[in-house]
């Protein structure tokens, strides 16, 4: 028979408690506070303010620059949508690197949020026969077209439903975000995403200090830690300020279009109403808000 109040269990508990105290005393108050920080969605305005203020101080210490960390909520009456003209994309990958710079992705190990796939015109949209490794002298190459894939910002996202700790969710403006502090790195979301749009920080992310973007959003481009998942947020730090995402700004052929799906006057609504539009893997019922169209 097991005795719950045995001397043995008492000693065990004492050992455990002393070990825990020792471990906690090893870190300072700030680290402890961060460790005990709640899910972003349950934080009060006051708590959020304190956290983003502390983050700006931490980043300044680490990178020696002034940072502006925002926690701006979704604008009322907005639902973001994106459209990409397959007839015009030339596969130059300018968007990939503009995104890396804007969103402070790790350079080593390399993380890219946009994957540009080269496809054969004869085969149409066929992922099995596509490659992101193409590297000719000049693009577009004969007989090929290009299909850049990033997060499709699904209206019915599967990545958020599988998260065991609810560290990822869809914001009211339709952007699927990750609370990097709450993410446990289980990568279930990566398995659930049919577009390969989520990326894991396998190593400690490195960003050159001179290239770091100091305009940050808590749910977007603030530097990530090792062991968390990240993804495209439509440049949340830009679009909630009214700006276009940086991939839209850089595209040399103007193939990328962005706007508010709820505004009948927007470019995106014009495209949906007047062009031939498709979404990737429609049969999965993920209902992407990222549309591909033929602008010819």
């Amino acid at each position, binding site marked *: 028979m097991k005795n719950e109040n045995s001397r043995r269990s008492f000693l065990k508990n004492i050992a455990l408690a002393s070990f825990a105290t020792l471990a906690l005393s090893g870190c300072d108050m700030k680290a402890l506070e961060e460790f005990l920080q709640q899910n972003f969605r349950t934080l009060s305005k006051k708590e959020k303010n304190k956290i983003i203020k502390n983050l700006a101080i931490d980043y300044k210490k680490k990178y020696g620059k002034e940072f502006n960390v925002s926690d701006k909520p979704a604008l009322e009456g907005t639902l973001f949508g994106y459209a990409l003209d397959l007839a015009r994309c*030339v596969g130059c990958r300018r968007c990939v690197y503009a995104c890396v710079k804007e969103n402070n992705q790790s350079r080593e190990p390399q993380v890219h949020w946009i994957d540009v796939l080269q496809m054969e015109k004869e085969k149409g949209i066929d992922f099995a026969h596509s490659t*992101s490794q193409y590297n000719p002298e000049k693009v577009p190459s004969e007989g090929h077209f290009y299909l850049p894939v990033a997060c499709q910002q699904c209206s019915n996202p599967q990545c958020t439903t599988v998260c065991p700790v609810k560290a990822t969710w869809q914001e009211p403006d339709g952007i699927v975000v990750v609370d990097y502090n709450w993410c446990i790195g289980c990568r279930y979301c990566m398995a659930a995403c049919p577009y390969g749009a989520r990326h894991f920080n396998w190593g400690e992310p490195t960003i050159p200090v001179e290239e770091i973007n100091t305009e940050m959003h808590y749910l977007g481009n603030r530097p990530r830690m090792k062991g968390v998942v990240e993804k495209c947020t439509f440049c949340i730090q830009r679009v909630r300020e009214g*700006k276009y995402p940086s991939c839209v700004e850089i595209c040399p052929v103007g193939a990328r279009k962005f706007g508010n799906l709820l505004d009948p006057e927007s470019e995106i609504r014009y495209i949906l109403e007047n062009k031939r539009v498709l979404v990737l893997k429609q049969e999965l019922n993920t209902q992407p808000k990222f549309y591909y169209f033929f602008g010819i």
Partner: protein
Amino acid sequence: MEIRKFKNIHRLTILLILCVILALSCNNKATDEIKFHGVSQKQAKNKKTEKVTEFAVDAPPFSYGIYPCTDCHANFAPKPEKRELVEWHDDISAIFNHDSENRWCLDCHDLKSRDSLRLASGKLLDFKESYKLCGQCHGEKLRDWKVGVHGKRTGFWNGKKEYLLCVHCHDPHAPKFKEITPEPPPVRQEDIK
């Protein structure tokens, strides 16, 4: 017997009233809530984005020393016949690829008023409005460009935007978009250490 009949009628009227209320409420819902991606349209209409203002960026600069055209052309007698240019503008002749079989300089440039462009109708056009000239043939592109679908807009999705003119991206004498060098491909999964 009478009482029972009366009761039945009473029940019937209540049922009828309930039905009418139900039908009305259903009807209301149908007209009020046109849902788009799960968000009510009505709410969106009330909250219209602020007035969108669009600005053209400056037209791209002319090649050095080429404008105003009258600097040279004022001294030449106009020659309206279609021909291969050899002495001057031979650089343009060399690259010209814009329905070259059927068109040449004076289809877009005016013979008499050298510093202007010219529509098919004969109407003169400033170089800043060249998009109208392009739109004569590429009407569908012009339409898409006006609403921001063809071409590129930068700035604010809900406010001030800048747009590029046709000639920013397309050389009017050889409009096909030039091939460009791609950025390096991503590191292969198997090469990540």
